């Protein structure tokens, strides 16, 4: 007959919950093994990542080196394109900084009243109107001639003979039928596109007392018609357009041989 211990297990001496004969060591070993298994899984995962990432780095580096080598081999092409863009930009700046003389002459002819004539015309691009009127286009100063003339980037900076900010001025000598026609001429000259100021320097009849002989003679006006001298100032030349070089360089064309 089998003996039965009727004392509740928690009240038995020297016994612990689940300890059994191994005193709980089996649980500890199982726990350790479990954790070790997790560690092994983590290690394996990390190891696989290390391997794959190493090969990925090697592959990427090789591709980058290959791309670098090819790009270096093509560097002369890149440099040439840069040279072309730089030169196109420089020429564009010079083209943009020019004064449209033909248009100005056309305008003078267009606005001149019927009873006024011009015996001589002298136009020149004066010095810069000063820093106050110099368009701030950004970029470095282009040195040399014009004070305050601003160009584009220093690398493409060229000095125009008519730098931005320069003021074109015309001096007109002519004849009119009467002083009223001289006044009308002044009014009409103000209609010229781009004119900032029209100044009468003299208007003298050849027979007038105290008249400047040179003006009267040089005018060569008929009878007692007044000879006038008028100074016209135009707006300062604008800064070169800040064009994207790509837009400019894509369209250099050649016309007929000049």
């Amino acid at each position, binding site marked *: 007959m089998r003996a039965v211990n009727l004392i509740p297990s928690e009240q038995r001496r*020297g016994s612990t919950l689940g300890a059994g004969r191994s*005193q709980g*060591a089996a649980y*500890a*070993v199982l726990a*350790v093994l479990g*954790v*070790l298994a997790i*560690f092994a899984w983590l*290690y394996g995962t990390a190891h696989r*990542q*290390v391997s794959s*990432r190493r090969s*990925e*780095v090697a592959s*990427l*580096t090789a*591709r*980058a080196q290959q*791309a*670098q080598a090819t*790009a270096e081999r093509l560097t*002369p*092409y890149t440099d*040439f*394109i840069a*040279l*072309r863009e730089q*030169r*196109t930009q*420089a*020429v564009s700046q010079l*083209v*943009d900084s*020019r004064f449209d003389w033909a248009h100005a*002459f*056309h305008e003078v*002819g267009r606005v001149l009243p019927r009873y006024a004539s011009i015996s*001589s015309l*002298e*136009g*020149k691009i004066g010095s810069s109107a000063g820093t106050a009127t110099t368009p701030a286009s950004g970029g470095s100063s*282009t*040195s*040399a001639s014009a004070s305050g003339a601003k160009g584009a980037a220093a690398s*493409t*900076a*060229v*000095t125009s*003979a*008519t730098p931005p900010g320069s003021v074109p001025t015309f001096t007109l000598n002519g004849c009119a039928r009467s002083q009223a026609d001289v006044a009308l001429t002044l009014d009409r000259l103000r209609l010229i596109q781009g004119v900032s100021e029209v100044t009468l320097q003299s208007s003298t009849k050849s027979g007038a007392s105290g008249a400047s002989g040179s003006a009267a003679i040089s005018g060569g006006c008929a009878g007692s018609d007044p000879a006038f001298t008028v100074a016209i100032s135009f707006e300062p030349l604008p800064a070169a357009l800040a064009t994207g070089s790509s*837009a400019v360089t*894509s*369209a*250099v*064309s*050649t016309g*007929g*041989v*000049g």
Partner: protein
Amino acid sequence: MTGRDRMVLIVVSALVVLAAAWLLLVSPERQQAAKLQSKVTQASAQLATDESQLASARSAQSRYAAAYASLVSLGKAVPPGREVPSLVYQLAQASNQRHVDFSSIVSGASSASSSSSSSSSSATAAPAAAVAGFTQMPFTFVFNGTFSDLYHLFQQLNGFTVRTASGGLQVNGRLLTIQSAKLGPASTVAEAGSAKAGAEQLTGTITATAYVLPAAQGLTGGATSASPSGGAGSSTTVASSAPGASSPTAPAIARVLP
């Protein structure tokens, strides 16, 4: 040793084993994987940069022929040498087209209205003003013609190099910047040099500046139509790319070597 002591010993041993496993195996591998991940990121970024440069270089390579042609055509506007003969030729052609008498050309910005030497030899001896970027070559031209003809001549001179409506450049000849213009009655009919009535004839004195590439730069920077590196693998050479020896129209003529 009591059961409790054994239990403590087992637990401590298990913890030591686990800690050792973590510190010696798992953690270093994970750190290594993390480091490699950052390397992968860096390598990817480097590869993207290099591939971008490569794409840019390949684009430059594909655009090389067009760029070469446009750079050569820009050489008509700003040649590598002084090219006074071609400038005189262009001016003579333009004045012929506009029925204007091309009276004289004098190198330098000084007043040249009294000069009637129509020679390019005197012009070539004059000093050029070297400034930042292009070298300036001032000239003074004297033309005789009617107001209308001179106006059209101004248009044509400006039209040697102009901006197109699309923002590009159209190069038909030498880039000129007119600094001053003086229109006055022709002193004699003989000076006018035409059969037109002397009263209608004007003498136009124009001070203008042409431009020359810096001596250090060739027209194409040593590139040929086939290769930017100057003849490597090329069977075609530009006949006149040497500074000082080229003509604005010459680069369009290529010599094919056997």
